[in-house]
């Protein structure tokens, strides 16, 4: 494609981004309506939406708004949250239909005077905005997300020393270890939407994270682990995972790179990192 066209589109998008920023700066103090999905299946409460008016300011996040509503309007709202700074991954929910972190979405970034909040899809529903993550965690567990290496567990007697890893070695996997396990990607992926056993973008990108880390010595086993009926082949590069990931993990990239190794497009040239000899300390 012509470079110019691409550039043009990119500048257009940048401008749009800037305008969004501007709009946000001028965001007036006011109030808006939260349209909250409510249901408690176990207790037999059927799904419905509640509309709650909350005051907002320029920096108010959807989480702030929800917590205000919980404290002063309806204390029974079920919601999961913790860090309020986009690092714990608790507060994923669908905001205006798209999976996002509530604490990372300012109301001023959203259009309109009404914000719809719903629980993440593809996770079993528990109550109101809260969903069950156990299967998601199980998928993560299943890709054996830890360094496999005979000397991974240090003996205290061993010489104290690190694996030598250059900044370039680190860059190969660092992006994928940004993952906060918020599950937004899992909620967005169209394959996960129908395939209950598909490992999902989060787990598969973690498989790549450990695969490409040069402290790990079990690349073959890792490939075998994802090479099955509900494994990596069920990703068809819909890209939605990367589109919603709040941390720039780009799980789609990790998955395709890992599959490149399975397909034999890429060779695993990583040299296993060495231990630097060092003086033993007391």
């Amino acid at each position, binding site marked *: 494609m012509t470079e110019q066209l691409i550039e043009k589109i990119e500048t257009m998008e940048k401008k749009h981004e800037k305008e969004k920023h501007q709009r946000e700066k001028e965001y007036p103090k006011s109030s808006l309506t939260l349209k909250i999905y409510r249901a408690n299946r176990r207790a037999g409460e059927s799904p419905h939406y509640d509309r709650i008016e909350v005051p907002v300011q320029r920096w108010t996040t959807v989480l702030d708004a929800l917590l205000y509503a919980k404290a002063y309007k309806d204390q029974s709202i079920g919601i999961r949250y913790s860090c309020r700074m986009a690092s714990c991954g608790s507060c994923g929910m669908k905001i205006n239909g798209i999976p996002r972190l509530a604490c990372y979405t300012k109301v001023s970034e959203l259009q309109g005077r009404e914000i719809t909040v719903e629980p993440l899809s593809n996770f079993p529903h528990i109550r109101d905005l809260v969903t069950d993550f156990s299967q998601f965690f199980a998928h993560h567990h299943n890709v054996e997300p830890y360094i496999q290496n005979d000397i991974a567990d240090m003996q205290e007697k061993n010489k104290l020393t690190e694996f030598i890893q250059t900044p370039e070695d680190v860059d190969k996997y660092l992006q994928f270890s940004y993952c906060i396990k918020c599950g937004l990607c899992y909620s967005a992926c169209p394959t996960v939407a129908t395939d209950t056993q598909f490992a999902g973008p989060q787990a598969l990108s973690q498989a790549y994270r450990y695969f490409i880390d040069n402290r790990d010595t079990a690349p073959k086993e890792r490939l075998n682990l994802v090479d*099955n009926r509900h494994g990596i082949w069920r990703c068809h590069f819909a890209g939605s995972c990367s589109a919603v990931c709040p941390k720039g993990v780009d799980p789609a990239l990790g998955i395709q790179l890992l599959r490149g190794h399975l397909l034999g497009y890429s060779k695993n040239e990583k040299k296993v990192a060495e231990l630097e000899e060092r003086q033993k300390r007391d």
Partner: protein
Amino acid sequence: MEHLCSLGANNKKMAMLRESQIMKIHYITGVAAIFVVAVHIMMRIAIMPYGMSLEYENVIANYQNIPYIVLLESILVLVSIHGFNGLRVILLELRQSKKWEDGVTVLTIAAMIALIAYGTRTIIIANGLGFE
């Protein structure tokens, strides 16, 4: 390390081919299909006008041509493999249970074989028709 996880368990079930082998076949048959289908279509429109190419005599004449038969047969095989595997993939993603998955696998393979057989039958008969 012994882990009782579903991924591992699934691996055991896959006796015949690994999923990666299946999908490699899927890609290769896909790429190959482009070429053979292209030639096939070219022959429909490049040698004579499209309408004419469909006349009975012309079609039968084609079936006398051994390279053309080979072409048709390879289209039949390649596209069937690719297409039915594609279908299998979609169906596998729709529901998950041992019964469903085994059923899907058996059915798509059976359908694939049936289609290839049926198409081959046409080729053989059409080829035979010319000698009469």
